[in-house]
């Protein structure tokens, strides 16, 4: 059937797609940036409450932080291996605390990120503590011992030979304890 004459006289209609593509691209970029991919390896834990803790955007901070999550073995996440420490780093449970220490050393890398405000750990060497921060996310029900263990392996071991420690120790002095700031309800 041919269209009626009045319709045939209509001018060619062109849809200007440029502004729509602009907007869609803006949206895609927004969602790609704010998405939680970077924290996919962070295990869910119920953090302890601390109303005066400093509330900051973790997305911004994580580049400078080494995030260790300590879960409660009594309520473990899926895939939890009870033969390993209840500690997650880079989304996985290290084989043991020695393996965690090696991973932290590789990422803290005091030779690449030296804290110039602190003196060298061995007088004869130029190895300074790392300027990166260790952030510990621990479940509120957990005994403090595992948090102490993470702190202990992140720093120098008292009495250990200084030369080997300057090569193996993560030399992380700055520690942050993650908490639920004011107004955050206990997740059920």
């Amino acid at each position, binding site marked *: 059937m041919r269209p009626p004459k009045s319709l045939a006289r209509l001018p060619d209609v062109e849809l200007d*797609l440029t502004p729509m*593509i602009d907007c*869609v*691209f803006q*949206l*895609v970029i927004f*969602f*790609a940036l*704010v*998405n*939680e991919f970077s*924290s996919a390896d962070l295990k869910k834990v119920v*953090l*302890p*409450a*601390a*109303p*005066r*803790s*400093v*509330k*900051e955007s*973790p997305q911004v901070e994580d580049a400078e932080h080494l995030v260790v999550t300590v879960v409660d073995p009594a309520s473990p996440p899926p895939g939890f291996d009870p033969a390993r420490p209840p500690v997650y780093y880079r989304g996985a449970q290290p084989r043991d*605390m020695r393996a965690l220490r090696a991973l932290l050393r590789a990422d803290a890398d005091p030779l690449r990120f030296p804290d110039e405000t602190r003196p060298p*750990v*061995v007088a004869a060497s130029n190895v300074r503590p790392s300027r990166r921060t260790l*952030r510990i*996310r*621990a479940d*509120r*029900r*957990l*005994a*403090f*011992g*595992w*948090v*102490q*263990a993470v*702190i*202990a*392996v*992140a*720093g*120098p*071991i*008292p*009495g*250990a030979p200084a030369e080997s*420690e*300057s090569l193996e120790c993560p030399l*992380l002095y*700055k*520690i*942050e*304890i993650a*908490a*639920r*700031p004011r107004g955050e309800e*206990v997740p059920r």
Partner: protein
Amino acid sequence: MRPGGNLKRLFDADASVPVTSLIDITFLLLVFFLLTMKFRDPEGRLAALLPPERGLARGGAPAVDEDLVLVLASADVPPGAVAASRVRFGRGRPSETLGTLAVGDDDAVVSDPADALVSLVPWLEGVRRRAPSVRVRLDADASVPHAVVVAVLDAVAAAGIPDVAFGGVRRGFAAEVLSGGTPK
């Protein structure tokens, strides 16, 4: 100079970029991100340091005089108590007991018998007024609940003392943990 030959034909051709497939893919991406998006919960942080004496040169040295050492030690749970755990906190070793804290099942740190944690903040503020550069060292037993340690860290932050360090790990603790032992 005007283009000629092949170039002229190229310029004269009606060139248009097919955007349909581009829009298809872009919309697919948009829908994917919309469906998978989840904002991450903002978390608070309490800053602390390793004790300054925990260096390689002077491992295990005692705290210096100007440090205020807060000790958190597990206390006996009285019969019939609703609390999951009780913690005695005091100053230095041997400690002057400042109070006991109890941790409820609902995460709240309940003070007992008086509101010890609330009274800790003005006490710490008094210490800071007398010694503005005071440093706090927190010695906690491995069995103390993490929530209690955080509650005390929070009280220290509320008192305006920025310099907090963890200490109190007995000699050999790190070596035990590194050799596969459970921290206790």
